[in-house]
């Protein structure tokens, strides 16, 4: 639509400029944002841009956002051998949804190997991995930073003798595996003393 000079038939352009489009995108839930990445190239570049994401996240956490009152609880059930994770939402947290753990691929050398899964000082029965990703995870404290959890992979004999920690976002299902080389000086007792945090200044996650 073009701007017409005659006042009696005046039309106005309905093209929304980019800064207004951004203001609209900031107000979408993450699920919508992700699936609108395929609208066009500039949107897909914008949505993954870290500055856009920072503003989006700040807006999401502010009380002006309509989702501010929608909190949900994550329930980590550690009673059985295989741990389960649930999300509880709703006014009385009556909606219980089981979440799937991330499907982290195994190193080929450890597939089919029987592993011993020890949590703190209690050791569980040997759990043979039946397929890729069929593991239970420990969640490191603090539980969730900006929607990302830090998971500890059970002790698996790895040819490089690394401990695996996984940064996982249950909403977008993205995960990143971090390998920490086990120092020869540390005993197993120290294996659970990692701390996970977020650095505001550098806008990045930190592991201590």
């Amino acid at each position: 639509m073009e701007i017409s000079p005659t006042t009696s038939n005046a039309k106005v352009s309905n093209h929304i400029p980019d800064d207004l489009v951004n203001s609209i995108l900031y107000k979408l839930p993450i699920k919508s944002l992700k699936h609108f990445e395929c609208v066009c190239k500039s949107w897909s570049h914008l949505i993954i841009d870290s500055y856009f994401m920072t503003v989006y996240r700040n807006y999401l956490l502010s009380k002006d956002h309509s989702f501010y009152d929608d909190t949900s609880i994550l329930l980590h059930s550690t009673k059985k051998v295989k741990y389960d994770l649930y999300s509880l939402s709703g006014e009385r947290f009556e909606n219980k949804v089981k979440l799937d753990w991330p499907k982290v691929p195994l190193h080929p050398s450890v597939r089919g190997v029987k592993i011993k899964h020890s949590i703190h000082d209690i050791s569980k029965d040997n759990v043979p991995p039946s397929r890729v990703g069929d593991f239970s995870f420990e969640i490191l404290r603090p539980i969730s930073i900006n929607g990302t959890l830090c998971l500890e992979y059970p002790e698996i004999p790895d040819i490089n003798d690394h401990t695996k920690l996984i940064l996982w976002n249950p909403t977008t299902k993205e995960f990143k595996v971090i390998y920490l080389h086990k120092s020869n000086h540390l005993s197993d007792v120290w294996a659970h003393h990692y701390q996970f945090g977020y650095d505001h200044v550098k806008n990045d996650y930190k592991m201590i």
Partner: protein
Amino acid sequence: MAEEKSQASSSKMLTLKASDGVLFEVELNIAKEMKTVQAYIDDCEDIETIPIPNVLGKHLAIVIEYIKKTNEEYDAEFEKQWNMDDLQLLLLAANYLNISGLQECLCKAIAKRIENKSPEYVRKVFNIENDHSPEEEAKLRKEYKWAFEGVDKD
């Protein structure tokens, strides 16, 4: 918005002229909510008629009513009355007139209307051409398969 009839300045009336020639007489304190108009008044104090070239009379009327009535309840009901075209034109009007409250309200309303829709619908709304190659689009759709669950058919 309480009318302060006791003060002489707030009972001063101003005329706003929309792009299609429609005239609106508004009180000064209402007109001042539009920062663009405020800037106009600051520049030329004696002005009585202010041209608003980007906004149709139909939308200017809605904007003025919004300013007079706005509160939480009104906002919640406000956006339900308008179709997508009107919402967009109102957003452009609010942006041009620099009324931040109305802009926020309209952005939220548009976001709510598109959040569960398909990318095709969104392209139509914003008049965007799909410049992804079919392979790129297939890859994105596959990667974000979880995000496409529950999308409205439209």
